[in-house]
């Protein structure tokens, strides 16, 4: 594999855009990325589009990438859809990385898009893909994380206050970021006393329903030099399905541990080298578990990690400086690439909520539930490590 760089990124505002559709959202993000990279569209040789729910919600299972790119006048190249739960966008990025890294192509487009507003069952939790037997028995993503939380509290003494601190921190980070769905500050008290969704998870412990798109243009390091003096290198991109473990521990995700381990190993970078992390904070308890699974702190100490400000802007590893899924919102297929956009801006030193002197960024998306009644792991986890290529 040769070194691959990101030379352009772009995204839409994230929020509720009931009048929009996935093609318009994708077009805006892609156009922003093309302008940011300063490339000619004819130089893009391959594209991957990540989207997880366009089939179920908008009757567009395939061809989303082709339709978006057609609007930009990009055609006659290999384009495919990448569906991989909440990691769809991250997986599109990884496919693009492999395509350029292998030497087959010099320039690739990675696109992520989703439109979740206007669905049937508005105001109720979005059910998960697959997992039919669990769903008929009342399962949904907040149910899984509610179960994680009850056990984490029992085993490690994690508190509702510590959970709320994740939401408060991510909302504070979102303040200066115009692309976030929610920017107004919130308090620990407000998080704890917001309506209960799945006891013990309250509304402000859950990420919102969001529309949006994000995109990145990748090329070989050699080609990158023609366009920018600040190429962002992809130091590693690891993808892992859930390991099958009998009676697994619900307070830790094997797919995440393996993806992080593989990424650390490939990049030769460890948690101690990371300047900032954008993790999959779909629920506050998820962010706490991620601290532990990624080695930011010891197992069971995730609650204390946030309480002591270690994941804050001035802490050991600022986590979700963009506002995270909790505040930016979570248009499923777009999230992984939104994390890439925000991290590229951090490494360039131009982010609204800038981590001073950031050189290495860690991004993580994960989702999907094992299609069985036995307690299973997350189906897909993607970890990408970016570093300054200058």
């Amino acid at each position, binding site marked *: 594999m040769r070194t691959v760089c990101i030379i352009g990124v772009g995204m839409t505002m994230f929020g509720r855009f009931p009048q929009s559709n996935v093609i318009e959202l994708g077009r805006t993000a892609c156009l922003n990325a093309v302008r940011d990279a300063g490339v000619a569209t004819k130089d893009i040789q391959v594209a991957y589009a990540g989207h997880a729910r366009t089939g179920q919600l908008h009757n567009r299972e395939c061809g989303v990438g082709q339709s978006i790119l057609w609007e930009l006048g990009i055609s006659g190249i290999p384009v495919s859809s990448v569906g991989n739960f909440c990691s769809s966008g991250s997986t599109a990025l990884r496919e693009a990385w492999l395509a350029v890294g292998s030497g087959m192509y010099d320039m690739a487009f990675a696109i992520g898009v989703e439109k979740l507003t206007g669905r049937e069952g508005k105001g109720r939790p979005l059910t998960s893909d697959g997992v039919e*037997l669990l*769903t008929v*028995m009342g399962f949904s993503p907040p149910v899984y994380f509610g179960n*994680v939380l*009850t056990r984490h509290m029992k085993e490690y003494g994690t508190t509702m206050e510590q959970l709320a601190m994740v939401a408060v921190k991510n909302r504070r980070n979102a303040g200066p970021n115009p692309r976030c769905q929610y920017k107004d500050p919130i308090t620990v008290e407000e998080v704890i006393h917001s309506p209960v969704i799945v*006891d013990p998870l309250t509304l402000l412990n859950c990420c919102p329903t969001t529309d949006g798109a994000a995109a990145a243009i990748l090329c070989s390091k050699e080609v990158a030099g023609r366009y920018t003096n600040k190429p962002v290198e992809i130091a590693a991109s690891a993808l892992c399905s859930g390991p099958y473990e*009998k*009676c697994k521990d619900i307070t830790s995700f094997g797919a995440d541990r393996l993806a992080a381990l593989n990424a650390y190993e490939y990049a030769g970078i460890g948690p101690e080298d990371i300047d900032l992390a954008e993790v999959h904070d779909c629920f506050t308890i998820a962010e706490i578990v991620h601290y532990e699974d990624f080695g930011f702190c010891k197992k069971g100490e995730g609650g204390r990690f946030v309480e002591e400000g270690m994941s804050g802007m001035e802490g050991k590893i600022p986590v979700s400086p963009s506002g995270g899924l909790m505040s930016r919102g979570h248009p499923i297929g777009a999230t992984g690439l939104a994390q890439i956009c925000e991290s590229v801006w951090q490494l360039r030193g131009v982010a609204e909520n800038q981590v001073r002197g950031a050189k290495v960024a860690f991004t993580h998306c994960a989702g999907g539930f094992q299609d069985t*009644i036995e307690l299973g792991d997350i189906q897909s986890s993607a970890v990408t490590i970016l570093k300054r290529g200058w």
Partner: protein
Amino acid sequence: MTADNSGSKAKVQEDLVDPKLRPLIRLAGSPSEKPRLIGSKCKSCGEYFFPKRVLCPNCLKEDVLEDVPLSNEGKLYTYCIVKAAPLGFDAPYAVGYVDLPEGLRIFSPLAECDKERLKIDMDVELIVDKIREDKTGQPIHGYKFKPASP
């Protein structure tokens, strides 16, 4: 009660069970019996699975799995109480994961949704009862665990 009557009663009971869950449950045939979940056991490696599988993923053989009734008693591993229900469900309801002695940790609706009466590691017992309603308001049954009688 004649055999015919009990047979039709069992049929009514079975008809109430969600069709997707029917292959997973063996209803009690008489008042002295208890309902059971049906899983698979691999004759070759001894591992249990729920729900049933066709292929043992350890042995990669299709003819080694046999249907077995699983223990109807277990321990509550974790739980939560749903207050914002998906379509078809009435809140509040509780769901959790139950550890069975066969080395299985399985998802299950819980018959008790009072937080004060649910405790991690408590003993629980299998029942068959209403889990949700269909679009016309008819009850749909499935398996559940309830706190074990002392």
